[in-house]
């Protein structure tokens, strides 16, 4: 038995387990970071840092679901990253939509007819705007619930707040979206 070989084999096994369990959720992690940070390059930095952090602490991961586990790390990385890199008084109102339009323009234009296409695009823009304008606490709760479809209990774990808080943030976030979209869509 070669000690170094054994260690190398263990490291390789650890890594393939990480790749199999955690990396499939990279898209979800990136999307969450994008919506929390408000722009692509910050989101990528945050996700990269978060995934490496997750890898470092992977031995502490014991069998729970990998997706909420990773999202919790992404969310925490995001929070500390913003504290470090953004002045406190600057309230974040991201507008990922404008980036999305520039980068995915071609994909968005696949709707059937010109009228319904522009209508569809207008609606999508309103939805992006409504989510972007939510206060950060409500926005992350809504994203975790409606996009990630996590349970209240899982969201409470990701945000490290009591379930009651999750409940009220989702309720209030939803109310705000309802008001915004009612004005926009009618």
């Amino acid at each position: 038995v070669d000690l170094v070989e054994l260690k190398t084999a263990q490291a390789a096994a650890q890594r393939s387990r990480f790749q199999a369990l955690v990396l499939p959720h990279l898209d979800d992690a990136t999307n969450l970071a994008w919506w929390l940070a408000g722009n692509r390059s910050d989101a990528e930095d945050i996700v990269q840092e978060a995934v490496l952090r997750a890898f470092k602490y992977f031995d502490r991961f014991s069998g729970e679901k990998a997706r909420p586990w990773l999202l919790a790390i992404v969310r925490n990385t995001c929070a500390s990253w913003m504290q470090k890199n953004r002045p406190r008084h600057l309230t974040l109102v991201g507008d990922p939509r404008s980036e999305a339009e520039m980068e995915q323009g071609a994909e968005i234009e696949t709707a059937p007819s010109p009228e319904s296409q522009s209508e569809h695009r207008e609606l999508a823009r309103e939805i992006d705007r409504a989510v972007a304008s939510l206060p950060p606490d409500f926005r992350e709760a809504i994203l975790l619930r409606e996009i990630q479809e996590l349970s209240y209990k899982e969201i409470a774990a990701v945000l490290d707040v009591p379930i009651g808080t999750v409940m009220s943030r989702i309720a209030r976030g939803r109310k705000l979206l309802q008001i915004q979209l009612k004005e926009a869509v009618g």
Partner: protein
Amino acid sequence: MSIFEPMGFIMDCESLHLYFDGELDTVAALAFEKHLETCVQCRADLAEFREIRRHLQGELSRMPAGDGLRQKIEAGLSDAQDEDTPPVRRRSTTWQKFAIAACVVAMVSSGATHYLEQPNEEALWTQGIVKAHERAMLADHRIDVASSNRHTVKPWFSGRTTVAPLVVDLGDAGFPLIGGRLDVPLNEAMPALVYGAGPHVISLYMRPASGEAAPALRKIDGFSVLAWTGNGFAYTVVTDADGTEAGAFQKAFAAKAATMP
């Protein structure tokens, strides 16, 4: 507005979000549905929340992880592991072997095996062939049989290894066959086919396997490692060329292999 249920449940507008999010148990959900029957406001809100959810899930912009980010992360993982692994290889002494054995016994008996990752065969194989490729490149011992003719390369292996490799000519696709090499990635001699890719060298390893698996790319020790299964073999490419080049090679090889008898 609230109603009182015989089983003692009071359900009112407060529970609308819990109901909508599937957070109520069956009894409570039924009680809330009773409330819904009488509450116009909740019914209207519920319909709107459904609509909002449909829009969020269907139309909200999303940003997936791009290839650039994925590559950075893979590279970061390699760096993180390199820091943990000592660069100099040492043979373990007898007392170290005893120490390891004692640790293993202690871990098994203490139930701590959960934390000891079992190095799986697949990982060992991959690690083995990456090392073999690296050795061949460092020693400038790229090939044992030099030939661009697959009818020369294939028979050379018979008698030297139990695996009869599938050798195809990919010169047309820009990957000329350079020759073959005998490697010992684990404890058995295995065939490695050597192809050129511009200034780069590709080692292709194969061992018999059933089924099909889509190509999966990894970066190990700076090499692109691309593995896939098909045509009765599990293939692994190891090369200093980048992932795109490895992918192009894989496509060309798989296409050619599919036409072979």
